[in-house]
């Protein structure tokens, strides 16, 4: 076997070995540590539930097109589902993020999980913003002409043209959701891989500082 093949084999083997750690039981556990017992643990699941509602309603909106969602009836109702889904998504996501901060959830090797969570929040803000621009009403127009100064001034307006509905709509329904869903998926895999972060030590917290980072 050539050296090149060995290296290639090692790389693919490493991926395979890593994949093997994600058994169905690891992904869908039947047990959790007893400290996982608080309403805050449902915030993440509720955020994910809202994301599913937002993506599903978004797919239905995209399938029917802009005229449909601006016409009273089923289109406006579905736009309402999408809109309130986004409201719920941000509500639960911010509760989740705040709770995880106060639990110090980045401890014990979980910095990557925190990083992807914060990144998902930032991506969600941009994705939601492109949604506001895609609605096709006065708010979209006003936010477009206002936002152009912010985007131009910060230096990305030369590429991110908020006056180009085609680009904004493409970013909103394909590019940004794809990146967001990828970030959230890896975030979830990391949560399952590391398990739920243990509570801070009950006794002599100062002495345990070394293992808390």
């Amino acid at each position: 076997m050539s050296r090149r093949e060995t290296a290639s084999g090692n790389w693919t083997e490493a991926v395979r070995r890593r994949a093997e750690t994600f058994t169905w039981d690891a992904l869908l556990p039947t047990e959790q540590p007893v400290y996982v017992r608080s309403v805050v643990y449902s915030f993440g699941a509720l955020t994910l539930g809202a994301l599913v509602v937002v993506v599903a309603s978004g797919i239905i909106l995209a399938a029917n097109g802009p005229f449909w969602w601006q016409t009273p009836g089923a289109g406006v109702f579905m736009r309402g589902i999408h809109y309130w889904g986004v409201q719920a998504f941000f509500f639960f996501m911010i509760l989740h993020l705040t709770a995880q901060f106060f639990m110090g959830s980045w401890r014990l090797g979980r910095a990557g999980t925190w990083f992807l969570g914060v990144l998902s929040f930032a991506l969600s803000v941009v994705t939601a913003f492109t949604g506001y621009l895609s609605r096709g009403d006065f708010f979209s127009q006003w936010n477009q002409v206002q936002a152009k100064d912010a985007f131009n001034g910060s230096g990305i307006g030369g590429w991110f043209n908020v006056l180009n509905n085609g680009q904004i709509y493409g970013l909103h329904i394909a590019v940004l959701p794809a990146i967001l869903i990828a970030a959230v998926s890896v975030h979830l895999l990391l949560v399952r891989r590391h398990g739920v972060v243990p509570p801070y030590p009950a006794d002599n917290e100062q002495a345990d500082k070394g293992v808390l980072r």
Partner: protein
Amino acid sequence: MRRYMTDPAKYPQARFDLVKEAVISGVVVLVIVVIASLAFGAPYVKPLTIKQVASTEPVLFLQTAAHELDDTSAIAQYGPPYNNGTGSLQAIGPFHPQTILGVTFPINPAKVDVLQPLSMATPLDPALKPLLTQWDGASHQQQAAWVNAYLAALSKATVRGSAVVVPAAADGPVPAMLSALQALGSGGLMSGALDRLAPVYRYDVAPSLLFLQGAALQQAAQKQDLLGGEWGIMHDELSYPGPWWLTPYSALYQIPPYSTSSAGDLMAAYTMLLILLVLLAVPFTPGLRDVPRKLRLYRVIWRDWYHGVEHGSGASAPPSRTDRRERAT
């Protein structure tokens, strides 16, 4: 003394059904969202059209068109990405990222907003042709003098419905040209004549939005308290919640130097980027990463666990050895 464990698997376990939790969460959100959508609908305010402005605000329409025609509009002098002007160029000292990508979406407002639509209308109104020839043949100084004389006369104009009677002045072909443009606008043909950056698939509405973006949209937004200094972008939803997650960003626009500087957008964007980087770096930032440990709010979240640990009750009993030691052996 009991030692601390780092591996969740080493703690006492309890039965847990992730699938059940996921299904319940999804159903809870769906029910809330469906009820909210049925009860409150979704925010929508009819878009502003050029036809509307040409019909109901004819003087505003003519002023806008006149400034576009002699390149004195905000967009004509804007700067990148539309042109090489400096009117809206944001800079903090030598730092002006707006210029990095250059002029990527060139717009010539006089041509796109006025001359081209009129030229397209010549088959319908052949009298426009000599007017356009007269305009094209004049020097820049002459064109500017005509537009200035026209704007002065327009300020004394009388308005009857959508008809504007402009007093006579030394303004050459400008009154007839802009009157024809207003007719095009009030007839509803103008946005179609403007948004022609692509030959057929016209997703880019920059020309029509840039025509409306100055006074027309500004006035309409002001009526709804939507200006930036009025928390515009986050309370833009009538009685709906709006994008309240932009509160920190909108807040910047209420305080100096963001609210007073001509580079306010630039400063606000990079301030938000800095806040994002700080949030991302929390796990690695001494002091910041210790905040939750010092605040001890986690004692509320894990109160059952700590109660069990401190009172030694049942399944919540603390682990008796470290998994670190286990790993070492």
